[in-house]
């Protein structure tokens, strides 16, 4: 099990993930992964600075499986990372589709 950090962007509420060099990214595939909960919590302390700086809201740590591309362990985070399962035309899954085209 690995760990990653997610939050909602203040401006539009869209789900974002904490990536390398203190950047927030749109896709879970680009998120920084942490090998342990402790490591993730340490990164969360840094990520929280962006809450104080009003970039994101409510950052938190969650579990991912990363045999290949990272997949959120829990269905809630999987849905956050993709979009509503009942509207494949919205959320990040739609952006990915558009990119592929």
């Amino acid at each position, binding site marked *: 099990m690995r760990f990653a950090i997610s939050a909602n962007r203040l401006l*539009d*509420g869209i789900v974002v993930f904490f990536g390398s060099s203190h950047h927030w990214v749109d896709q879970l595939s680009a998120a920084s992964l942490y090998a342990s909960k402790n490591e993730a919590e340490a990164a969360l302390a840094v990520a929280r600075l962006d809450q104080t*700086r009003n970039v994101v*809201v409510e950052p938190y740590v969650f579990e991912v499986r990363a045999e290949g591309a990272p997949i959120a362990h829990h269905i*809630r985070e999987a*849905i956050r990372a993709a*979009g*509503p399962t009942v509207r494949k035309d*919205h959320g990040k899954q739609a952006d990915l589709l558009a990119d592929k085209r």
Partner: protein
Amino acid sequence: MYRYDEFDAGFVSDRVAAFRDQVARRLSGEMTEDQFKPHRLMNGLYLQLHAYMLRVAVPYGTLSARQMRKLAIIARRYDKGYGHFTTRQNIQYNWPALADTPAILEELASVEMHAIQTSGNCIRNVTADHFAGAAADELDDPRPYAEILRQWSSLHPEFSFLPRKFKIAVNGATRDRAAIQTHDIGYQIVRNSAGEIGFAVYVGGGQGRTPMIAKKIRDFLKIEDLLAYTQAIVRIYNLEGRRDNKYKARIKILVHEKGLDWMRQAVEAEFEAASRDYIALPDSEIARIKAYFAPPELQARASSQKFAARRESDPRFAGFVSTNVAAHKIDGYGIVTISLKPIGGIPGDATAEQMEAVADLAELYSQAEIRVSHEQNLVLPHVALDDLPVIYDELLASGLATANAGLVSDIIACPGMDYCSLATARSIPVAQRISERFGDGPRARDIGALKIKISGCINACGHHHVGHIGILGLERKGVETYQITLGGTGDETCSMGTLTGPGFSSEEVVDAIERIVDAYMALRNEPGEDFLTAFRRLGMQPFKEALYDTSKGADI
């Protein structure tokens, strides 16, 4: 129809201006999220799973065509082209940007709409029968009373910080279509032995994690005492309601813990003691508000040739009429339910184009009036039967002619884990699969009246406790699990559903529902004993047997 009076218009535009300022300060970093959150919630703006969510009140479910057009414009301009109609007679937008919300509120204010009282521990938007002012079985239109309560409670200083949110519903017909017994206060319009109109008063109902049926606290309340009595109830609640535990803070817990007799004594004493003069409702004030809801001047019409001929020749039209058209007060008219439950679709969702199509129909054929029902459907309340064939054709063209109102596929479902940050499981996909299994054809018609209601967590926004069949989505060991309850109803015979037993996985749950329905079909008394009646006669046992004896893997 009601329009703001000057007080309201000024008040709402001040609120929008204040919110614009708050959003600017939040975006600039002057305000922290903790400081900002109460303000955004007060304006109906939540942060959900994927984005912000804006909840807009449709007071007592009444909308004009003009307002519906505005909702469509907002969906298109600021959202992703659709909105979600909810069980609280609200519409929710799922994707607005924070920076856009003041502009949205301004657009709403231009058609006398707002998001005030859609959240927070205040008296929430008052709900009413969606057939109000039109239904054949109505004693008196509940909306003027709902409106009087709304005006009085809007930002009432004494009642802006209650122990918890407070929901009032008013019903004026013999059938309770407003589910008043599941509200904090329910007002049922009745006629007493002297022939006067007044209210029977129910208190302490609610759903959520502790479902309770409201108890009748008074048989008859004079109309002039509506506000005085409401004030007495809310005061007692404000004083005595628990603030130590959010889950025990609703008035239902107070009534439950202290008992109905205690509650009645306390309320009556407060009602007698308080000076009633200044909030007694004079006839002139009632008349003034009633004028806003004056029924359209409809002349009774002779039986319609066009309507009869189409009904004769087109079985699908006839099917639509039998489920989606209800009796109107005036001969020759009907009330049309526009189902937002297409087979396999998302309950309650409507596209901007569909909203506009409904607005057009309302303008042409229904006195420019639309209703939003707590069953997540839309209603054209005043339709001449003569016009029904053309309306039906238009609805067909817009994908809105699903003939399933009140049937097994007319399912209520909350957003669940597809959108909601509090969810423990998804609800919409379960609704979609059940809807596909039963459809709206002969099988659904044979099954008859059956209300399935699905919530994605214990908060019960999908009303599962009062579903004839209720489904509650939970999480067990990281997996979605669905509990089933049977025998609930939110109508005048209100009852809470009983748990069948262990829950079912997402793969199993639709088959489980089918086994329940099949058992009912096998056991019902011909002809046409509906599901709820049959359940009440038969009890849980035969359904338990159908569910668990034959099922494989129902051992969660």
